[in-house]
């Protein structure tokens, strides 16, 4: 498969760099557009707790100076680009002297862990439902039930999460309601800890999966219908293959490609976590970190999370562009026709 040329790779790579730069720049500009800054935000937080604060203005000025917030925008931007290149954004502005990465990194495994499992499962479930809905051999009873599973998509998932907490955690006491792991267990590679993670992850997982499978299902249904009417699908039936095999190898296998692309595009989202789910389940991921960073205008933390997200998103776009011709022979086929 000599489909890849250097020229193509270079071109794609420059697109990747361009996207990355553009995203990074937007992330620099947008939070700074609003009046106020992380230091003022910090002062409000203190004032909020303590009622008042002496010499607030001097403190603000001194911290702004320290963080370089008084520099002209252009200077800040150049410094920022330097940070982006090194992928080091310095201290968190709201949690000085903690490094921005020290705030983001501990949260990252939680988000990535939870969301990757959730997205994979909802991807599988959603696409299975969608594929079954779009398949003409699906048993009628199943076909009439499936659409109902989609209506959960309409429930905002924070509300759904709460319902789950109430029923499964507080009424039935089956699962813990919140947190990443139990109070008594020590983080590490021990079975207790892993078991605890799984138990604590179940509810957030459920709420994401149930409410987000529908989206996949809707898309897959359409794709499957198209795949169903393709000639090779008919030929496979004519070959007398078992319906299951026809369904999987000649239907799903072909229809899944666009969904996979969408899936890959969503990978960036794993990093940014799911604010509401983390909010409801007190789950220690990056979604809430980002939310708080935005609230407190903690530029460096926002930058750390978002740049990681931009890197992953534009990186996956780049890799999809590279891999797609290899994964889906149809691409090369089309351009040669």
């Amino acid at each position: 498969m000599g489909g890849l040329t250097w020229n193509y790779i270079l071109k794609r790579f420059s697109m990747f760099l361009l996207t990355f730069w553009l995203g990074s720049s937007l992330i620099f500009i947008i939070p700074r557009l609003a009046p106020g800054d992380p230091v003022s935000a910090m002062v409000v937080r203190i004032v909020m707790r303590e009622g008042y604060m002496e010499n607030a203005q001097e403190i603000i000025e001194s911290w702004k100076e320290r963080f370089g917030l008084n520099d002209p925008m252009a200077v800040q931007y150049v410094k920022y680009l330097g940070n982006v290149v090194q992928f080091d954004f310095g201290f968190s502005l709201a949690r000085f002297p903690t490094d921005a990465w020290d705030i983001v990194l501990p949260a990252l495994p939680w988000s990535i862990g939870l969301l990757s499992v959730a997205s994979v499962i909802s991807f599988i479930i959603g696409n299975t439902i969608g594929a079954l809905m779009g398949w003409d051999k699906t048993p009628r009873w199943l076909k009439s039930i499936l659409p109902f599973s989609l209506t959960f998509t309409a429930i905002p998932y924070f509300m759904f999460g709460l319902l789950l907490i109430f029923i499964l955690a507080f009424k039935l006491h089956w699962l813990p309601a919140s947190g990443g792991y139990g109070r008594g267990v020590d983080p590490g590679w021990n079975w207790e800890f892993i078991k605890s993670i799984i138990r604590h992850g179940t509810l957030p997982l459920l709420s994401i999966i149930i409410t987000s499978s529908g989206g996949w299902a809707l898309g897959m249904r359409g794709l499957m219908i198209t795949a169903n009417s393709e000639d090779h699908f008919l030929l496979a039936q004519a070959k007398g293959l078992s319906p299951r095999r026809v369904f999987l190898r000649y239907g799903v296998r072909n229809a899944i490609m666009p969904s996979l692309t969408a899936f890959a595009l969503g990978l960036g989202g794993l990093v940014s976590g799911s604010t509401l789910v983390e909010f409801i389940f007190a789950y220690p991921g990056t979604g809430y970190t980002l939310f708080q960073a935005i609230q407190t205008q903690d530029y460096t933390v926002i930058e750390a999370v978002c740049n990681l997200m931009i890197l992953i998103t534009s990186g996956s776009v780049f890799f999809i562009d590279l891999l797609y011709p290899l994964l889906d022979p149809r691409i090369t086929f089309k351009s040669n026709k």
Partner: protein
Amino acid sequence: MAEPLLEIKNVTKIFGGGLLSTSKPVVALDGYSLDVYDQPARITTIAGESGSGKTTLVNLILGYLPPSEGEIRYKGINLHEMDRNQRLMYRREVQAVFQDPYEVYNPFYRVQHIFDMVVRNFKLGTNKKESRERIEEALNVVGLRGEEILEKYPHQLSGGQRQRVMVARAYMLKPRLIVADEPVSAVDASLRAMILDIMMKLRDEHHISFLYITHDLSTAYQIGDEMYVLFQGVTAEKGDTAQIIENPKHPYVQELVNSIPAPDPEIKWETDIHLPSEEEMRMKYARGCRFFPRCPYGMDICKQKQPGMFTVGPQHEAACYLYQKQQEEQPK
């Protein structure tokens, strides 16, 4: 001879290998030249196997694609240097009819839309009545009547009707040249005759020339005046249609003519034919004759250089070294 209407000069078209392409470059046309004369109006056939570059040629002429190298001149003006007015003139004078008579209709609109676009963009007719008259006239030429066609949707027309409407549309602009890319290969046998008949009528009565693209040599034989046989982006043989088909010179054209299935159950194909494998075909004879891997008469010289055109008869040339001697022996 007079100056050609359309001149194609050493045009090369390479697909792929470009900036965003994932595929290897394909040379669809390679230093291709072609002249179309139009006094008197005539039908010039371009024939050749599938993938030989026929449609690419059409796309170049109609300006859908830019040539990679070489130039296309219309009345002496380079297509890509035309100004706005010249372009409009070109669009008016060079029209097209395509293979699939269904695809060329926007399923969303009534048939009328096809004509409306033309009337609007080329300012045919100053008022509704006048343009309607012109539409009627054009439809009459192809044997249709406005009221039975215009208000319908494309899917409500038969294949023959659809194709005739397309011819009428082209005719309405009173073009000098109509490029017809396989105009009959998708229609029913009986309707095929009708379309070809209209083409001849337009040539003879309305002095419109045709560039008739086909891989069906038998229809070309019936209506064509001149013929170019393409093989992998270069001309293999050119000359008078009847001469080529009755007396093909180039080994490829011979093979082609022999392969046409006779519509007679009593006359079966004579010999078995074997094509070389893909690898063999793909093998690069860097500068050699493209047909060499398949050619039963392959000579050493064929491996070295693509042959030029050698005269093999009056108005009849073939790109094959077999005829090099012949030409040398009887110089003009």
